[in-house]
């Protein structure tokens, strides 16, 4: 699921940049052609509206799985503010441990919850840009048509920002890459024994 999502994201971001270039929101920002997917607007639109299915189907399966098995509740909740501050303090002192990669620290929890929510908003704003008349009720939520475009752009920027941090940190802690390929170490079911 993670890698299907990664593929869909790369295709959507790369083709989205090409579509954006046709009518830029910010005069100073054009994405270099070599960074984009699709060759031109028509190809980029084909890629974007193909990868959108991959993202939506995979995303729905992921959400259904995470909710049904209790994975979200177990892994992402709760986020304790005290632990959050402690983690940030440890990080700044270079003391943050990654001994147990099966447990997310509060910063990770917040980031993962955040990016899941951003992707959901991104799908909604994408639908509002694609179908501002058929989904006019949804489009109203984002203001005007250009409002939906702006929200969709900001969502992209936040996801790209997340990706930069996410990929850099995964590379710094190579243990996690092994886990991503093998399915990860076995985990205890009971949360009470989970933390030091």
């Amino acid at each position, binding site marked *: 699921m993670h890698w299907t999502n990664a593929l869909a994201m790369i295709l959507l971001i790369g083709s989205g940049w090409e579509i954006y270039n046709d009518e830029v929101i910010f005069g100073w920002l054009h994405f270099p052609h070599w960074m984009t997917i699709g*060759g031109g*607007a028509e190809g980029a639109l084909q890629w974007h509206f193909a990868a959108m299915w991959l993202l939506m189907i995979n995303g729905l399966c992921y959400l259904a799985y995470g909710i049904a098995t209790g994975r979200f509740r177990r892994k992402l909740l709760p986020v304790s503010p005290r632990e959050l501050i402690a983690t940030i303090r440890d990080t700044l002192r270079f003391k943050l441990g990654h001994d147990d990669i099966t447990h997310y620290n509060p910063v990770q929890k917040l980031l993962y919850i955040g990016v899941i929510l951003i992707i959901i908003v991104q799908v909604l704003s994408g639908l509002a840009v694609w179908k501002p008349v058929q989904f006019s009720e949804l489009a109203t939520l984002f203001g005007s048509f250009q409002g939906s475009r702006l929200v969709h752009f900001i969502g992209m920027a936040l996801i790209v920002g997340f990706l930069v941090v996410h990929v850099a940190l995964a590379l710094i802690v190579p243990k996690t890459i092994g886990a991503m390929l093998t399915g990860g170490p076995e*985990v205890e079911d009971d949360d009470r024994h989970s933390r030091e």
Partner: protein
Amino acid sequence: MPKTPSPSIFRPASGVDQSMLAEHKALLQEIDRRKVLRGAVSLGALTMLTGCNVTRTDSVQSVLKLISQFNDKVQELLFRPNHLAPTFSESQVVKPPRFNAYYDIEDMVPLDAAKWKLELAGKIKDKRSWTAQQIYALPEQEWIVRHICVEGWDYIGQWSGVNLREFLERIGADLTAKYVSFKCADDYYGSIDMATALHPQTILATRYAKEPITDPFGFPLRLRTATKLGFKNPKWITEIEVTNQYRGGYWEDRGFNWFSGI
């Protein structure tokens, strides 16, 4: 305490073989961070390069085309025949509207209304052609709606003209046919689905902001539908055909999605 596997359906029932991880633990810890980053960057660049080739491969193109056709069907299902596009007030209307064509505005060739005729073809009972005078004498309706271009820009326009459904009924068109197809004086062409043709906000526009449409915007006759992207609104129309044959369109035949509903 006993360790039980997490309830993932993707995890092998017997658990993951840890020996492999253990074997490579030393190696993993040895990995130089900079080397990993460097490797990742070149791997990323490599995928980008192969991406260029993949994009041009015929099989990928045909899969993308199939998905685009599937998206036509999805949009047909999403289309709400009686759902009106948002309308706006006269004070929000942009004058003049924004020009769009497959060439620049300097290359636009104005039409002579006196010589112009609208030809009818296909599944239509009364195929007599129409003069501009006859068309401009038809009862008109007005819509102030948003024009959205596939490129991403938009403006609010005030269009009036004969309702396309009323016109099709008047000429005895077969309303069960699949497509309404248009030919234009500038060799542009395009086609729309019958459901869109029958939508209340689809008109054969003759006026903009109550004045006859000016030359760059399709004088004497153009299509204006509130439920499709800008390029699905042919200008300088010379022929309307009602047909079951898929006729594509100028941009559609160059890779843009055919239905292109909004």
